[in-house]
């Protein structure tokens, strides 16, 4: 298992307009971790994820993701990172298979990889040819995770991934994430749910007021 540093942030500041969403975040994540970012809404959890994805500029401090300095170049790291926010990034008029194939074609993955990804997400068989718009929240979530798999993303950034899922959906999601880590990915989850996610994460940090408050 790869234990190199995946994320290295020191005193990072991110602003939206004139509001400092991150007011000096120091965080280290090593390969193979499932890190849980816990905190209330507005604390900055989502912003930390977006920063790691290279989506928002870091205006103070330093941030390095997968060896790339985000203050110099935050675009080149994007294709190695998968961000799953509140939306799934799916095309509701297409089937599951067509959605995954779209990403497969972009990265040059073949039929076999598509089937493998669908399999791993439990979406093989009849489910694969269902219109995404007709799926349940949990199934849509799994479809978007299949996209992350087919993209061979090394760092998975998930914002409230368990939201809207029933008990079985959450269990399925947890086992998928553990599998992904075994296969070499690193996972960061932002969540304000305490009990459930604690069992999944290897480490938990508390985010509050745009800063990291404690590590457990």
């Amino acid at each position, binding site marked *: 298992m790869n234990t190199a540093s995946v994320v290295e942030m020191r005193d990072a500041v991110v602003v939206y307009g004139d509001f400092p969403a991150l007011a000096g975040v120091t965080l280290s994540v090593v390969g193979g971790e499932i890190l849980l970012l816990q905190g209330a809404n507005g604390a900055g959890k989502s912003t930390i994820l977006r920063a790691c994805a290279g989506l928002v500029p870091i205006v103070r401090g330093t941030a390095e993701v997968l060896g790339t300095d985000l203050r110099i170049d935050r675009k080149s790291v994007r294709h190695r990172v998968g961000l799953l926010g509140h939306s*799934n990034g799916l*095309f509701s008029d297409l089937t599951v298979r067509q959605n995954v194939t779209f990403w497969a074609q972009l990265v040059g993955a073949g039929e076999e990889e598509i089937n493998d990804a669908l399999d791993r997400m439990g979406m093989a068989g009849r489910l694969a040819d269902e219109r995404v718009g007709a799926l349940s929240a949990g199934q849509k979530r799994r479809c978007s995770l299949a996209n992350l798999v087919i993209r061979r993303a090394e760092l998975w950034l998930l914002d409230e991934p368990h939201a809207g899922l029933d008990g079985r959906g959450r269990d399925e999601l947890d086992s998928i994430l553990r599998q992904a880590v075994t296969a070499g990915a690193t996972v960061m989850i932002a969540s304000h749910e305490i009990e459930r996610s604690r069992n999944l994460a290897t480490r938990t940090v508390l985010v509050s007021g745009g800063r990291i408050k404690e590590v457990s």
Partner: protein
Amino acid sequence: MSIGTTWRVARVVATKDLRIEMRSRVVANQVLPFAGLVLIMFAFALDDDILLERVAGGLVWLATLFSLFIVVQRSFGIETADGALDSIRVAGVDPAGIFLGKALALVVQLLILEIVLIGGAVVLYRVRVEPASLVLLVTCLLLATLGLAFVGALFGGFAAGIRGRETLLPLLLLPAIAPVLIGATKATEAAFGISGMVTSEGWPWVGLLAVFAAVFGVGGLSAFGPLIEE
């Protein structure tokens, strides 16, 4: 490094767009009827057969422009409905490829729309298309559509999704496509033989359309990426 070469990205994105259209049939079932209605509305408003025949060229392209807004907003609506454009951008996919792909899909949809509209003009406004001017007409259609698709993809992408930006689309789009309206109308009138125009008079206007398409093709390829960036 980004995912895929520009052309491959464009192909995948365009195919995806057209596949979605084939399944949802929004352009076929909603936009085409709308465009046809616009032609009929023009007839009500202008109420003069001779006048209608004379301005048929302009009316066809006006109807196209009105429909352009809807088609472009639909094109980016599928991207923003579930954050797909964001995901694609976030994944580091080559933005020039996204631009080209969206534009290509728009070209196909717009061409179908324009052919239907010209058919409508032949039926409703009694214009005639001579075989001799077919080359002019087809070239005009292709180049004008290319220009409209490039501008539509560029500003459509910019206006997509962010609250307060969607309303900018018409304001940004209309001044930009004025040259296409002027050029395509004149070339089409030449093809229809309106007011005694000869086919050869249409070619300078086609030249204008070509320049426009080239300018916005190149401009769009470079500007799309920065414009959709946060």
